[in-house]
């Protein structure tokens, strides 16, 4: 772990004590006097370091510990043990100082003032972050042109659509030009075009402004489109950490062939170089790993020679498939090393 990394997590742990509720009226009365509680290890010994300018996807199932990690990095939560450091500041010890360096967007919550016009919320944020006049105007003008905020500025936040609100929230998180941006499911509930706009914007601020971005999402297309690194967290532990491209190479090399057959189901295709992946009525998905020595063209020729192929398409494996496979492995045999 480099001492100069922008963001560091060192053996982070966070436990929660959760009181167990009891069912029924009698149960409720009982739990008034004696409360049973259990300890949950939301984050269990996590270490990583993130360099300036990275775009990291932080991925995991619900309850895997993603949000808890983000809350420790943003200074909302104090870890049970271990240490976090963001730009040389321990976030939960110097919450206010850290707040100046980070921008946070929660897809499910808005940081804009519900009853006020968007411009008023921005004005308030300007005071909150003590942004000097010229910086503010220039920055807002740029963000506004990228996100096309012009017509939204005078509208009260409660009248914005989800997509419009997200655009405003993204700008709000970047007004003070933070070095680091934490995004918690920024595309949740958005339509395809709005999602695409958000993604293009995020890519832009990462590339043109060099903002380091940590993105948690359930949408693997977000990860695939944006992140050059992915950290998968499962049951509070890191299940995988590395380059997004390498993730595919290691866990799912090659291509997926989607084949549709004429007439009767020919049964499971058995050809050298292809292994079964998924099967559904007259369609089969076959995995070509390239390990057997046979080239993709030879395998396809053999497929056409031996079966009545109606349609064939070739896909690169998706991150979603790989992540799903890692979750499943985690359930079966504990951890999966990188």
């Amino acid at each position, binding site marked *: 772990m480099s001492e100069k990394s922008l963001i560091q997590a060192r053996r982070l742990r966070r436990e*929660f004590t959760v009181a167990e509720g009891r069912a029924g009226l009698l149960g409720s009365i009982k739990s008034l006097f004696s409360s049973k509680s259990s300890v949950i290890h939301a984050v269990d010994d996590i270490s990583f370091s993130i360099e300036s300018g990275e775009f990291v996807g932080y991925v995991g199932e*619900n309850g895997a510990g993603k*949000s808890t990690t983000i*809350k420790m990095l*943003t*200074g*909302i*939560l*104090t870890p049970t043990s271990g240490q976090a450091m963001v730009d040389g500041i321990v976030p939960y010890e110097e*919450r*206010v*100082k850290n*707040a*100046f360096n*980070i921008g*946070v967007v*929660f897809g*499910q*919550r808005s*940081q804009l*003032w519900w*009853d*006020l016009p968007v*411009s*008023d919320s*921005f*004005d*308030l944020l300007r*005071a*909150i*972050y*003590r942004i000097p*006049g*010229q910086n*503010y*105007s*220039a920055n*807002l*003008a740029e963000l*506004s*042109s990228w996100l096309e*905020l*012009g017509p939204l*500025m005078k509208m*009260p936040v409660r009248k914005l659509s989800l997509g419009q609100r997200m655009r405003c929230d993204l700008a709000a998180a970047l007004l003070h030009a933070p070095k680091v941006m934490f995004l918690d499911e920024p595309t949740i509930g958005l339509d395809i075009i709005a999602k695409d706009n958000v993604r293009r914007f995020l890519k832009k601020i990462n590339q043109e402004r060099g903002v380091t971005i940590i993105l948690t999402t359930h949408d693997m297309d977000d990860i695939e489109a944006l992140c050059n690194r992915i950290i998968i967290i499962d049951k509070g532990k890191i299940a995988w950490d590395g380059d997004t491209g390498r993730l595919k190479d290691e866990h799912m090399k090659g291509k997926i062939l989607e084949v549709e057959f004429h007439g009767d189901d020919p049964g499971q295709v058995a050809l050298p170089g292809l292994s079964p992946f998924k099967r559904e009525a007259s369609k089969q998905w076959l995995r070509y790993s390239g390990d057997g020595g046979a080239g993709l063209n030879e395998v396809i020729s053999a497929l056409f020679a031996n079966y009545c192929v109606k349609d064939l398409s070739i896909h690169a494996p998706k991150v979603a498939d790989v992540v799903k496979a890692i979750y499943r492995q985690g359930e079966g045999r504990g951890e999966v090393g990188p």
Partner: protein
Amino acid sequence: MSDHSSAMAPAPGAEARLFLAIERFPALTLYLKFALKAFQKQLAYKFEYFVGVANGLLFIFIFTSLWKNIFDTSKAAADISFSRQGMISYAVFAMIIRISMSQDDLGVMGKVRSGQIALDMIKPYNFFGATLAENIGGTMFHWFTRAMPILAVCMIFTSVTMPRDPVNYLLLILAWTLGYLIYFMVNFLFALLAFWIVETFSFQLMKYGMFTLFSGGIIPLDFFPDMVRPIVAWIPFMSVLYVPTAVFIGHLQGAQAAGFILFQAGWVVALGICCALTWRAARKKLIIQGG
């Protein structure tokens, strides 16, 4: 210096110009802005506003009628430290002060329960200070748009008159401010309960009950039986409405008034310490609801 002239920046309103002068004090600017935005927020709800005014007038009518009847029919009223006219003044001003002190006492609790408090925690400001500033903004709105018009109506349609002595106004400002802070901090502490208890409705109910009974808004301290009066006097709620009302109408004067105001100041300090300690404990306890 500020530059609002960019095409994309908000138009330079009167408010923006006002803040040019104090741009050099960022913290002060921030809290003033919080207050202003809260004031502005209230403007969004016009219907709520008119209902509020009507409600205030209705309550004043009910309580002045009630006291008039009590004084006209009860013989025991003669023994009481209030005159008939004094009691009516008390009822009117206590209600107006109550309206002027209106606070958003469920805001913090709602933030804790919904997890929205996470958004406050990622901002570089003091949560207590920001909440207080916002509350003051809302209260100023109530002062100017509710308490003042209701006061004007009462001046026209009731026998109540404003005190002549400027000392009464000075004492009011002092006692009102301290009472306001006490009320704010009691609300803040009750709201923080939401960190430990998910359902705080019964506590809120208890608070409302105690406030209604012990704040002096309806029954002044003087009317409590001798045995319970010392206890009621010690509860911080008495400082909220009774003390400002009583010093304003001249019911409490001189050393007596000074004593009550000192007592208020003591409560402000004590509650301030409680708030700081509870907030610190709450931060450790913090679990953001809903992930």
